């Protein structure tokens, strides 16, 4: 076992850390207020290898060989330290691209990869409560509501996991309602209403048992990425809080010297450190096809969700009254924390239902 990063990993971490510290943090407050990322985000991020990292080289992407979820988790942690909303946009193409590569028909691949290579975005939605109505006759007829989903307002395609079906929807002609939730406000969210929306047969990536397997894989990828980013947000929140606590004096001493506040930071960083390691383990398990990859990703997300919720609330507490107003980043971070637990379903509930189904089947 070796916890050291190799040269490539170290280089990517350092590069993304600089980008997160200098650019994402610099843009975060304005992007939050505007409910949109700065225009230069796309070009700068593309230069750093985002958006096309999961698109095969043969389709004008940058992926040659196996995709590294470990590298993605390492960079996700740094992005989380920068801005969760913009991080969601930078990571949004990965699930659709990897799914299309693994299970897509050539028609689905050409449509998706063509759009992404031209600078487009795609996103992923999970019908975690079984609310979509789907008629499957080779092609699909889908009714119900998708989202709220980040990047959906800007995406050309959305990868949907529902029941045992994994399919791609082209968003052209889809009734989308762009929204700006209170967290990840830069992430170009939308909901979509589908009324017997037609999905052609060659956009259905997998169904039945292979569909379940494919969906489990996609959920593992995104859970791992979410966990890494959440650990980054939690860590970043305490970095901000303790930079403030060093200077803020109350009762004649910097508040960062109060034991109760040190304890808040220590608990948060302990939790975030564990969450980061759990995300990295899950990523390694996915990369090496370890049998516990799906479970590891789910566990990482449960823990990271708890940690980011607690750490951002506690970071705001350290800021006190200043934390409650938008002069400092604390209140944004607390708003940003919510999506890590709410997106793609309540992770604990999902685990309980899966374990119950398994126990009942025995």
């Amino acid at each position, binding site marked *: 076992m070796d916890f050291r990063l190799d040269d490539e990993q170290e280089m990517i971490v350092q590069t993304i850390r600089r980008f997160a510290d200098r650019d994402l943090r610099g843009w975060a407050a304005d992007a939050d207020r505007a409910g949109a990322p700065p225009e230069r985000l796309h070009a700068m991020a593309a230069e750093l290898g985002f958006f096309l990292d999961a698109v095969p080289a043969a389709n004008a992407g940058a992926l040659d060989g196996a995709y590294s979820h470990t590298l993605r988790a390492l960079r996700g942690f740094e992005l989380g330290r920068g801005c969760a909303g913009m991080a969601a946009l930078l990571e949004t193409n990965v699930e659709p691209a990897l799914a299309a590569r693994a299970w897509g028909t050539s028609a689905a691949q050409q449509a998706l990869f063509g759009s992404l290579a031209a600078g487009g975005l795609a996103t992923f939605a999970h019908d975690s409560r079984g609310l979509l109505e789907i008629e499957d006759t080779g092609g699909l007829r889908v009714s119900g509501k998708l989202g709220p989903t980040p990047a959906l307002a800007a995406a050309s395609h959305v990868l949907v996991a529902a029941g045992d079906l994994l399919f791609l929807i082209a968003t052209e002609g889809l009734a989308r309602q762009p929204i700006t939730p209170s967290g990840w406000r830069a992430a170009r*969210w939308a909901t979509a209403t589908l009324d017997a929306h037609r999905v052609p047969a060659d956009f259905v990536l997998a169904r039945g048992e292979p569909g379940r397997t494919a969906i489990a894989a996609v959920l593992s990828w995104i859970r791992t990425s979410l966990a890494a980013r959440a650990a980054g947000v939690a860590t970043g929140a305490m970095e901000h809080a303790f930079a403030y606590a060093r200077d803020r004096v109350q009762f004649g001493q910097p508040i960062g010297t109060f034991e109760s506040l040190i304890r808040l930071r220590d608990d948060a960083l302990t939790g975030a450190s564990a969450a980061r390691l759990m995300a990295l383990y899950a990523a390694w398990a996915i990369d090496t096809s370890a049998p516990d990859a799906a479970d590891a990703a789910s566990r990482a997300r449960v823990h990271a969700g708890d940690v980011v919720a607690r750490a951002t609330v506690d970071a*705001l507490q350290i800021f006190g*009254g200043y934390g409650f107003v938008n002069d400092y980043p604390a209140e944004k971070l*607390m708003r940003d924390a919510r999506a890590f637990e709410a997106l793609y379903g309540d992770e604990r509930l999902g685990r309980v239902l899966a374990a119950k189904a398994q126990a009942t089947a025995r």
Partner: protein
Amino acid sequence: MDMFHDNPMLQGVRQMLGAFAKQMIRPIAIKHDQEESMPWDLMKAAQSVGMTQTAVLDGRKRLTGIDEDPDPKKPRSQARIGVAASEELAWGCPGIALALGGSGLAAAPIARMGNDEQKDEFRKLLKGTDEQGHIKIAAMALSEPGTGSDISGMKTAARRDGNYWIIRGSKQWITNGRSASAYVVWAQTEPAAGRAGVRGFLVARETPGLVPGKKETKLGIRASETAQVHFEDVRVHQDMMLGGAHSGDGPAGGLADTKKMLDATRPAVGAQAVGIARAAYEYLLDRVRRGTLHGTPMASHQHIMFELAEMHMEIAASRLLVHRAAWMADHHLDNVADASAAKAHGARTVQYVTNRAMVLLGEEALEPGHLVEKCYRDAKIYDIFEGTGQIQRRIISRTLTGQNPT
């Protein structure tokens, strides 16, 4: 006195304000949260049911129909009325509740330390409407950029000039700070006397040198206005100093009195937290009763049902602490630690309940304008204002170990 059954008066307060919150506050809560605007129309309408901006001065008879017994040894009921009312109004929207009652923060020190002339002046300043046609409101200006939890480090100073005081300094996080017509500002009149030298002054908005500053954009309670206020050599007649000048005879009228006043509001602040927690919990409860998960009733899942039970227990425990602290105040018992416990526990409960409710509701709670998401944002301030969670724990633990709690 039976603590566990509401007397008819408290039941009446609950019913009346519960209905008011449901019919008048809740329907406009999301709008004012999203716009970050004051509910001026409702504030005007509320006056007709006794929620006036000077209610704290005028007593609660108009609201409850009952006068307090003037005998200081007999039990009162104002603290219990206060917590019952606070829970109901905050259930509707804590930001709007604060907009409705924010003037009370300024009225309270005037009621406690002001003389008849000052009370009349306060009433006069709040009569009629301002230039925008809004009812007139008041602000209490205590906190400063450098003094949040530690108000003894106050920098705003008042220096004597004949029969006048010249006030200079800046105040931060002031409720109604931009829109108030009357301010009660706290300033150090005699630095050598420390806390005992701090005094409150009643200042009219149009007094030269009083400059409302930036309105804050906040995480929650967004229907209540919060702003900075600057006092640039504001000249105030000595008759408008509350409690008289520092005489060396003790702290009457000084910061110690103000701190006691803050202590007295803690059960009501805890009750507001209970009201928000209840709002989020009731939303989830309704969803669980009617909702499905993969075609099965949500109420058939232990995972969800037990979380509901946990929330119910925490809310009930917080409410009992709040009512006990209020009951102690009404019975003239020392409740400093109990009031802190009520406030701190309420803050913890509302953060716990709103967090878990959001997780259980899933993606729907991310939609703009969702009540539970708003409750989550509104909840956090309850661990910060009126004494942070850390300050409350300091008070409780120092009381437990026999030290001076403050």
